[in-house]
């Protein structure tokens, strides 16, 4: 029976906080249980084999975007990856590339995402937003527009798209798909009063949409299925019209 399987986890271990530590692959054996996810398995390893193993889980439900890592070669959310997906029971885990490593499977996505938010000015630009009369009816919005904005806002800042991006590997300052999605979200929002020229200032160069090679690693690995292809194409067209 499959629940009797012994899984083999090969995990990259490295703690930059410890002087002299060097990256090494270590293997741990875990007895599979029905419905086991990588979240459950890693906690098992931490509790029973090696309490120093570092990784980040918060919601363990595929909602918060904390737990992205490279699972058998592909970026994905570890908490919602069932071990039963791997027929040979061999699971290789690496930290998400493209981010500062904290230790083992833990990377500093927070720092990257805050910088991204500051760069695209990820907020509603409306000088009246803070003087809105809160007692009055809210400004109306077409139900369809609200839904479209939500579609882009579903991004959980997991970083999978960043790690899958070839351009980012070559050019460190490249905004990456998560930034494009965020920008597209605000460009779509009637409450944001920025002009196309202002958006152009943010993404109208090689570090922005014009650097993108549209190989779409981002779309392939986005766990929330954001429409990268259409949005990047749309941004490029819109930005191309500015100058």
């Amino acid at each position, binding site marked *: 029976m499959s629940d009797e399987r012994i899984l083999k986890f090969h995990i990259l271990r490295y703690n930059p906080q410890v002087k002299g530590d060097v990256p090494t692959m270590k293997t741990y054996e875990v007895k599979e249980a029905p419905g086991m996810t990588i979240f459950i398995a890693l906690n098992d390893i931490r509790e029973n084999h090696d*309490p120093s193993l570092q990784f980040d889980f918060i919601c363990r439900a595929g909602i918060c975007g904390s737990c992205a890592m490279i699972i058998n070669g592909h970026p994905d959310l570890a908490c919602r990856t*069932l071990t039963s997906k791997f027929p040979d029971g061999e699971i290789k885990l690496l930290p998400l590339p493209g981010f500062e490593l*904290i230790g083992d499977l833990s990377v500093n996505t927070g720092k990257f995402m805050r910088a991204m*938010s500051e760069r695209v000015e990820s907020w509603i630009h409306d000088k009246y*937003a803070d003087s809105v009369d809160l007692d*009055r009816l809210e400004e109306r919005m077409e139900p369809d527009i609200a839904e479209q904005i939500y579609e882009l*806002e579903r991004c959980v800042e997991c970083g999978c798209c960043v790690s899958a991006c070839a351009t980012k590997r070559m050019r460190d300052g490249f905004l990456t798909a998560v930034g494009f999605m965020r920008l597209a979200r605000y460009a779509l929002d009637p409450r944001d009063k920025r002009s196309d020229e202002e958006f152009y200032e943010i993404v109208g160069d090689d570090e922005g949409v014009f650097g993108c090679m549209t190989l779409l690693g981002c779309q392939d690995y986005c766990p929330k299925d954001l429409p990268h292809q259409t949005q990047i194409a749309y941004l490029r067209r819109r930005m191309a019209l500015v100058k």
Partner: protein
Amino acid sequence: MKIVYTDSLIIGGGLAGLRIAIAARQRGYDSIVLSLMPAKRSHSAAAQGGMQASLGASIKGEGDNEDVHFEDTVKGSDWGCDQDVARMFVNTAPKAIRQLCAWGVPWSRVRKGDREVVINGQKVTITEKDEAHGLITSRDFGGTKKWRTCFTSDGTGHTMLYAMDNKAIQLGIPVHERKEAIAIIHEDGVCHGAVVRDLITGELIAYIAKATVIATGGYGRLYAVTTNAVISEGIGNAIALETGVAPLGNMEAVQFHPTAIVPVGILTTEGCRGDGGLLLDKDGYRFMPDYEPGKKELASRDVVSRRMTEHIRKGKGVPSRYGDHLWLDITLLGRAHIEKNLREVKEICEYFLGIDPVKEYIPVRPTQHYSMGGVRTKPTGESPTMRGLFSAGEAACWDMHGFNRLGGNSVAETVVAGMIVGEYVADYCAENPLKIDTKLIEKFMDREKEKISTLLSREKGESAFALKKEMQQIMMDKVGIFRNEADLSQAVEELKLLHQRSKNIALRHKIASSNPELVEAIRVPKMIRLAQCVAYGAMLRKESRGAHAREDYPERNDRDWLKRTLTFWKDENADLPEVQYEELDVMKMEMPPGSRGYGVDNTIHHPDTEKRVAQLEEIKKANPSADRFEMQRLLNPIEIPEKFRGKNERIGKGFK
């Protein structure tokens, strides 16, 4: 010694913490937010269902207003809440949601014309009015008279948290990530900040502030199976408790959500039932109408969870290797609705259960979900006994939920409390100088350093992981949905032993920098103390109220128990917390205790209830021309910051 100074120190980067930081910043005070993780990953992001605010734009919300919301909230709380706070809350909630609208939340909107919905198992057509088109819409949720729960498709908390964090980024508010507050710095009943551990380097840092706010979320992880995030461990509550000065309120009030998936406990939102989903037993039979003919699946959470447990105990559960469960059926809602408004639920079913909820039933069971208890505060959010210490959100016992909170009232609380408490935090910053006494800081820093080096140097001892597991199991088995004296007193004894053992934790991995085992070793003794507060408070409370259900005392006993539990941990070497009670004054209630209209009504009444009812009648008679606002001021005059006092506009009603 590393010291960071600021005006307001906000421990917690969820909705509540961020909103307070924004309020303080907008009033000109510096704030620093601490968080275990990036703020956008806080558990607030997991709220799928919605936020209650009486906007009344959707046709099924017509006639809604603050008064109806107030009534639902007080009933939901089983009269355990602070009615002044509930009033402040319901009056401000519409403003909170409208502000979030201006800050970017893409709330789902009313679409004019016909729409098919499922009500009570039947497909019905409702017609939204033309003039409401484009306003924020709402859905049905448990325990509410009107459709009042506003939402963003299936990602309400996510969009709220993103808007809030983005606003904080716009204002340049620093969020210090991967930092854990492990002790409160205080002297003579005044709080001066916190000792904080950097989770990457292991360094201890003193954050010194005029005002300190605990907004660390709930303590669901005291239980083995919970819908809560793995970081909902109650450490904020514990460090308040460990001051010996600040009390926790109503820690025994723990909510179980009817529909978490089996076995892992991930939540399927109340929106499933709100939108028309049904609960079925092993025979495919819809049993809730037999127990609750009125509200059926949509009675309040405590009631539905208990009815489900009762039904399982009658042998009607579906057997599985993880114990018995029931079915949640949303197949009748149809693919289009599920893929749009319940997509997160669909994803969860696919990824964690391997089923398609469009075609198959979802295995569910009541599971620990929400912590009504927390750091006891005054209506201003400040601790009644420690100046400069504030709390808000799920971590607080501000007390608008009493013994049961309604779905959708929690994210609403985080934002509303954030707005209101934020103003009082700013006031406090205005009135108080930053006190800097390095001796005092040193004392607290040394104490924490000492504790950590003891942990790191102990050769042999207990495993923090194992202690935690034992604690979680005790809480599950003996302090759960139904409680009784025998189980509770056993739990209290067993937890006492665990508390003793937790003084002897040793590590296998002895390094002071990023080290998950050390994190656990610091937290687990704190968690055990919280568990003791919950279990002990539950043992002492000999009545049933809201989520606290005693099999041996099934009646709600207003005569003896219309009071709030306060737990202190005054003596560091004590084995148990100290318990005191705070009376709720019936003679001040806008809505004196009565029947909830669902669940069993076997209340032992308070002697003042009749008096108060008569008094209210007299006031109403004596003021025949008072409108509902004047009447509320007569019955329940409340203090609220100036800027939130305006009347709320509604479509078709204006400001009436």
